[in-house]
């Protein structure tokens, strides 16, 4: 299945882009995608504890299974205002 990954701030800098399309196996979870990205982008590992993941606009637990067409947003600590 195909998902869209959005990345912001520090995480975006590590991934090198704010948006990418990933092909992942059926039944993949948010945690699976994170691990896959950590395999490709080593510095991402250091951001694991501070990064939240949102699926289609809602914060999810790592074990939540994804569906084709989902948007997964990687959200480091915010700094608005």
């Amino acid at each position, binding site marked *: 299945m195909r998902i869209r990954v959005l990345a912001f*701030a*520090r995480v975006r800098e590590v991934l090198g882009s704010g948006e990418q399309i990933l092909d992942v196996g059926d039944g993949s979870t948010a945690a699976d995608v994170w691990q896959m990205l950590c395999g490709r982008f080593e510095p991402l590992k250091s951001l694991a504890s501070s990064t939240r993941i949102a699926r289609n606009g809602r914060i999810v637990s790592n074990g939540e299974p994804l569906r084709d067409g989902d948007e997964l947003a990687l959200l480091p600590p*915010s700094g*608005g205002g």
Partner: protein
Amino acid sequence: MFAIVRDPIDTAALAAQVWSDSCGAVVTFAGIVRERSDDDRTVDGLSYEAHESMALAEFERIAAEAAQRFGPCRIGIVHRVGDLAVGDVAVAVAAAAAHRAQAFDACEYAIDALKARAPIWKQEHYTGGASEWIDNACRSSARSGAG
């Protein structure tokens, strides 16, 4: 009344939007880019980015919470993204209510909640070329942080 914008923010226009005949008070807050960082470095400018749809949903939730806590009020929240210079308005909140106490409380609640929860990110750019992402949760208190 909730927006993420790339152009300059008109705080007075936001205040006019939230006001209605039943409101005797409108409180506005403008968070403005200043020239010194919290650790006393000279700031040339800031860059903001946002997850826009999530940020707008958060603004709506915050406004609903303020009305629940402080009684009927109308809140507007606008945050700018992109590159901002010293003196630019980064965020504006306007709260209108029947009386001033409600309006003050609602406005303060909204900006504090925005800083704590909204998926918006800020990078400070310092004279000399260094840049740093700012984490609001690391600031000592909601009121003393920038903006």
